[in-house]
């Protein structure tokens, strides 16, 4: 286990020494052409304050991934992107991808403590509160312009779910796409993908972008689970049950101050793990889920006087259908199929004003969310009425403000406050940051944050979890963080961060004797966790268009009740990636190395530490064609991640080496 980690780290260190030793870093900006300057990242972030601001002034520790990174590193899902980011880690249970941050990644938590935004608009569903980050997210990363990762609580701006981090996906404009393209990809496990994109900005100022992606895969054909290794259950081998299909459609239209965004994504996934006590290797009535996300969003933003006014209306719909095969013997059948149908629909209207005042930047906003459907239905097919049918709806209103005050030439005080009114409770959430900037290239930040997460509809299903869940309260977190960000030379951006988190009243699953709780488990407000950690990140612009990035995170999240480290909470994570245009202009060879320390499983065992590497090559051929290929898990490292309570397995194996190759045909308009 130690060797897995040692080798790539050593290689990384050597490579880095070589790089630092033998190259003169990046050309000075004054040597670059205007075209090159326009390709450089200006180091701005939007989601930290709901306004575009330099990273150094943001009241958070921020990372971002650009469209160039996505194409160079062959990222196919948001999960791929986030797994490479400092301090984040993704666990895939072969159906959903779960995001861990700052030491919190408890198996069975539905990503409800991470807020996922698309262009600043909340897309966590309103039943599980889940941020779906795999292909089920419904948007193709090829349509992302940028992904901002804003660490720490941000409930003072966004309310619910902005607990550990906010992930803001900014989608591409027509002018960024500038043309049309058709892409075909094929790869391991019978994977095939077709994508068509077209986008442009017309001379009259109308900007449009449209994209459609369809992908299918057989998945890993034979998956072995030792927990099921007996002759009745195919000796633990799940055959042909890992496939998926998805479609992802995106459109964006901008004219003047008005932007319209629409997206629809649908993913169907077979589940090979026999989760939730289902039959293992059932081939006819497969365990399967289908998730759909629909988003329509209209934004109107314009300067008025010296202020900027933004008004927004959005419609979101999430549906999920699951099929679960169970032993049908008690009913005189071979199999009975359990199902659940989830429908979450919401309307959001909101607005905000960003107003510069002398030495201040004031943001005032309001938001109203009408959750018209929060429905959860579950039962057995052909066996009468559903056993659970929750027909929910709710409303929420919020007011927020944030003020950035310049205290002298080098000091910024950033203070925010948000009121959230729910039907059962109210919350007021503050955030404060003190930012000291000795120069435009360096900043020291002290950040205090508070956040909450409201109990979600699922956690409050009394039939499953007993009547007591009706009294669940929001969980909360208080955080302190110190950040040092610095730009050095023409080539280096570094960020160092130390944090201390105190999470209380965490909504925690617990066994119960209550005969009214169908599953024998309930949710209670009793988890208390203290977490602390240190993170370091360096982003480098090397020579002739080469770029590098490395990060390290050390973290410790302790459950106060047991005094133990939380399950699925690795102590160390080291990540490095380098890309270089080795085969001419527009080409790239990119390598990513991800190492993650061992993690405790729910049953108290430890998974091995793992280091995996991914390699991607992109090469344009003339002006029209581009070929590319990606090998993920290059060294075919065998590793697994801790499983949730839904599983018999203690750990879930992850993919070995897989590859994809593709051809893109670009057509000018």
């Amino acid at each position, binding site marked *: 286990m130690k060797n897995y980690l040692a080798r790539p780290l050593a290689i990384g*260190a050597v490579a880095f020494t070589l790089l630092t030793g033998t190259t003169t870093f990046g050309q000075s900006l004054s040597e670059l052409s205007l075209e090159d300057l326009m390709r450089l990242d200006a180091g701005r972030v939007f989601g930290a304050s709901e306004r575009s601001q330099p990273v150094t002034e943001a009241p958070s520790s921020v990372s971002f991934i650009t469209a160039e990174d996505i194409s160079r590193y062959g990222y196919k899902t948001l999960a791929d992107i986030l797994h490479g980011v400092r301090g984040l880690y993704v666990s895939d249970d072969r159906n959903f991808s779960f995001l861990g941050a700052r030491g919190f990644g408890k198996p069975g938590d539905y990503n409800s403590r991470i807020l996922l935004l698309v262009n600043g608009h909340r897309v966590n569903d309103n039943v599980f509160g889940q941020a779906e980050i795999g292909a089920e997210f419904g948007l193709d990363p090829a349509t992302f312009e940028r992904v901002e990762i804003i660490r720490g609580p941000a409930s003072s701006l966004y309310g619910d779910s902005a607990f550990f981090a906010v992930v803001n996906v900014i989608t591409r404009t027509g002018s960024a796409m500038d043309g049309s393209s058709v892409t075909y990809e094929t790869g391991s496990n019978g994977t095939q993908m077709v994508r068509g994109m077209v986008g442009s900005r017309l001379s009259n100022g109308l900007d449009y972008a449209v994209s459609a992606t369809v992908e299918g895969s057989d998945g890993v054909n034979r998956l072995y689970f030792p927990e099921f290794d007996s002759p009745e259950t195919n000796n633990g081998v799940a055959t042909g049950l890992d496939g998926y299909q998805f479609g992802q459609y995106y459109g964006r239209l901008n004219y003047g101050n008005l932007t319209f965004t629409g997206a629809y994504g649908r993913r169907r996934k077979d589940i090979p793990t026999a989760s939730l006590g289902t039959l293992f290797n059932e081939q006819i009535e497969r365990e399967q889920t289908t998730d759909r996300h629909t988003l329509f969003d209209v934004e109107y933003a314009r300067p*008025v006087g010296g*202020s900027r006014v933004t008004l927004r209306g959005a419609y979101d719909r999430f549906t999920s259908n699951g099929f679960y095969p169970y032993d049908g013997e008690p009913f005189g059948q071979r199999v009975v199929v359990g199902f659940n149908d989830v429908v979450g629909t919401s309307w959001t209207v909101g607005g905000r004003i960003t107003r510069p005042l002398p030495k201040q930047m004031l943001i005032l906003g309001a938001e109203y969310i009408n959750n018209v459907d929060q429905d959860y239905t579950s039962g057995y097919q052909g066996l009468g009425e559903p056993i659970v049918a929750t027909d929910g709806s709710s409303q929420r209103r919020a007011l927020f403000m944030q003020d950035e005050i310049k205290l002298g030439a080098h000091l910024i005080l950033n203070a925010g406050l948000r009121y959230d009114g729910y039907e059962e409770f109210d919350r007021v959430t503050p955030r404060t940051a003190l930012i000291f900037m000795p120069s435009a290239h360096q900043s020291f930040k002290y950040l205090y944050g508070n956040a909450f997460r409201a109990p979600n509809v699922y956690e409050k299903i009394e039939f499953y979890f007993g009547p007591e869940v009706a009294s669940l309260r929001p969980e909360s977190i208080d955080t302190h963080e110190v950040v040092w960000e610095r730009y050095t030379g023409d080539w*280096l951006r570094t960020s160092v961060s130390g944090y201390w988190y105190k999470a209380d009243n965490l909504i925690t699953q617990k066994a119960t004797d209550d005969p009214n709780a169908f599953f024998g488990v309930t949710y209670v407000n009793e988890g208390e966790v203290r977490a602390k950690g240190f993170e370091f990140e360096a982003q480098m612009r090397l020579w002739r268009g080469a770029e590098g990035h490395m990060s390290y995170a*050390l973290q410790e999240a302790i459950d106060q009740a047991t005094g133990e480290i939380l399950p699925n909470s690795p102590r160390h994570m080291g990540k490095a990636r380098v890309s270089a245009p080795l085969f001419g202009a527009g080409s790239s060879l990119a390598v990513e190395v991800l190492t993650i320390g061992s993690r405790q499983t729910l049953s108290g065992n430890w998974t091995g530490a793992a280091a995996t590497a991914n390699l991607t090559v992109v090469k344009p051929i003339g002006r029209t064609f581009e070929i590319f290929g990606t090998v993920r898990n290059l060294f075919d490292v065998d590793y697994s991640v801790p499983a949730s309570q839904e599983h018999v397995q203690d750990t879930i194996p992850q993919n070995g080496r897989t590859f994809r190759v593709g051809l893109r045909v670009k057509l000018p308009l």
Partner: protein
Amino acid sequence: MAQASFGRRALCGVLLLLFGWAARADAQDVTEVTLKGAFLFNFARFTEWPADALHPDTAVSACVLGDRAVADAFAKTVKGKQLAGRTIAVTNLPPTGSIPACHVLYLSGVPETRIAEIVSTLRDTPVLTVSDSDTFTKRGGIVQIFVESGKMKFRINSRSAKRARLQLSSRLLALAEVVDEDVASVASAPSTNLFTSTATALASVDVELFGSDWARRFTAWGRN
């Protein structure tokens, strides 16, 4: 077990970085500020002033109002550089007071009303006005720089450039978002308080969506 060695490796990494850092700590940074400095240099590079405004033997005079950091970055960028045999002199202007004769003028962080006032005074003089203000080209400024999708871009008001008798190179125009705008209504609506701003915005939603302006521009597109 693995922890101690892990810590050591992490430390090595940090040390390596510090090493690299120290090696080049004197160079310029890729921050928004330095990007602005580099953009300003390029704007000057691709602009031709009328002969009466810039004699062959004089230096190009560049002024920065309201952003000391940009002035410093700009000065650093042009250090040792020449434009057609001329040197460039960058001056950081005090926030108040009159504007001296400059060939390039960058305005930032000053109230919109002041920007409007300066732009209208300089409208018919050969000064390349540049700003990061949201409404700069609408107010008659020549170049507006802005960040979109994480990258720095710029918009040029070709009408304002013409009035100022500045010849902008085709290469610059090809990279810019070119608009041809007369001084628009923005200048006449200097609303100062939050409530009137909101009201104006709400009212203009209607105009934007259904108003004659939208319809006119849309039909113009149809004809193109």
